[in-house]
């Protein structure tokens, strides 16, 4: 790129960028710093650094139960979304059936509608069908809403897939199932891992749908939500910092995995892009 003459713009652009990054990271840094602050979540400057909040957190039974619940929900939701999202992407790619256009839009709807609409619609279904609210209803909700993620990711992967490979496999006498397991799936490996990771993270963080479908057992975000309403302690900072550390590790792992395979932008970005294009 030739930058000749664009002095004016390029002078303030880096400062703008620094300001935006400061804005984006200020809450995250605050969160982590104050998780070590003895005298609570506010107050400048932070002083009396301590690990007490972490100690308190590690003996907090309710939090860890909710973490366990969230992990269980996220894994189950991941299984459901992939089990239906992968075939859905295949169907959109290579089958014509009545209602295909409606199906495509319907699958994507939970991604673009406010979560609250999907949540309360599902609540009505469970109420009508006399299903008791529990972690199972949350799993069904997350699993269904996040089919959209699996479908968009895998569909994008399918667009890059060389169909001749599948054709060759079929010509050489493999049946559809063998072709699917040995050619299609391995080729979609990165899309599927990416989708799984994204679904897991989104489910761990989901609150709008869970808010309506919650039974007696809390997921982590709802547990935190409940505590926020009762008054706040740096214990919440502590659990959030730990989870941030975990997601950071997940992103870095994913990034290296992807980098070693092909240089491509992050999946979250790709998802937003595909959703923006509406297919």
């Amino acid at each position, binding site marked *: 790129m030739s930058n000749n003459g664009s002095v004016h713009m390029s002078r303030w652009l880096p400062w703008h960028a620094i300001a935006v990054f400061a804005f984006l990271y200020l809450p995250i840094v605050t969160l982590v710093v104050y998780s070590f602050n003895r005298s609570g979540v506010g107050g400048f400057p932070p002083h009396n650094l301590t690990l007490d909040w972490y100690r308190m957190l590690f003996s907090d039974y309710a939090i860890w139960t909710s973490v366990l619940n969230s992990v269980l929900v996220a894994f189950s939701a991941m299984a459901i979304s992939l089990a239906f999202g992968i075939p859905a992407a295949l169907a959109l790619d290579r089958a014509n059936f009545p209602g295909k256009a409606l199906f495509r839009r319907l699958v994507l709807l939970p991604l673009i509608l406010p979560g609250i609409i999907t949540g309360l619609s599902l609540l009505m279904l469970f109420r009508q069908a006399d299903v008791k609210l529990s972690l199972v209803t949350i799993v069904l909700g997350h699993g269904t809403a996040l089919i959209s993620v699996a479908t968009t990711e895998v569909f994008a992967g399918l667009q890059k897939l060389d169909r001749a490979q599948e054709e060759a496999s079929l010509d050489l006498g493999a049946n559809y199932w063998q072709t699917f397991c040995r050619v299609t799936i391995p080729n979609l490996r990165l899309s599927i891992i990416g989708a799984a990771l994204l679904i897991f993270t989104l489910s761990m963080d989901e609150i709008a749908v869970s808010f309506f479908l919650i039974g007696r057992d809390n997921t982590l975000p709802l547990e*935190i939500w409940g505590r926020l309403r009762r008054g706040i302690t740096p214990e919440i900072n502590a659990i959030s910092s730990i989870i941030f550390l975990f997601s950071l590790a997940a992103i870095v792992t994913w990034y290296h995995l992807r980098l070693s395979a092909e240089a491509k932008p992050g999946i979250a970005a790709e998802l937003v892009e595909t959703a923006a294009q509406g297919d």
Partner: protein
Amino acid sequence: MFSRAYRAVITLPPTLWVAVLLLVPYTLLFCYSFWSVSPSQAIVHSWTLDNYREFFRVNVYLQTLFRSMWIAARVTFFSLLLGYPLAYYLSFHAGKRKDLFYQLVIIPLWVSYLVRAYAWKTILGSDGVLNTLLQYVHLTKHPVEFLLYSPFAVVLTLTHIYTPFAFLPIYASLEHIPRNLVEASHDLGGSPFQTFWRVIFPLSIPGVLAGATFAFVLSLGDFLAPLLLGGPSGIMISNIVVSLFGAAYNWPLGAAISLCMLVLVVGLLFLSEKLEKKWSFR
């Protein structure tokens, strides 16, 4: 090349699942919005337009809807104001650091939404980080109260959350601009200003539209940030729906309001899709 059986196997399970767990619930939402509640709080399954009448008649509902749209509009404006120059900088001027910066925009997306809203609460509160900092450096004597529990706090937090969403499609559209177009403009004597406004900006409009739609739609339906940070003056339309499904116990009215929201959102998405097509040069 694919047999009928293969196509049936990949088509039937997802369509059935989606029919039962998405089509039926959204249809139920539609039905509920035409039902009513009896005084004994049972759902009356006879069709009526009363919920919609009430929504358009009672001032507080429409006012809250307009306030939500106004909040969402401000969030959209600020997200674009932050996101566009950043995307432009990354795409055209960041050089080697481009990938690193790009990742830096993405990372906050992976931090829990609730947690980030909560973090803003600890910053903006009357004994929060910002107020105590201001007092520490003797800029104010007393805490600045309007920071928390106001529409300002909601707009700030939602802007923080949705700026990356506005950034991403803009960045993608800027990256797709053929660089030789920009060079041609320079070679033909266009100033950087002219090149930006007459070449780069028009080509990035689809990205801007997508980013704006995301920011607007996502913030319009938000209910956690208002509850955490909004106070009475920052209540948004989803908060009303939540209360109608909870304490106020009027599901049909809640369903009617949700459906109006849904129509608004889908209409906006449709409009932005049409406009994007019109502006895209492919």
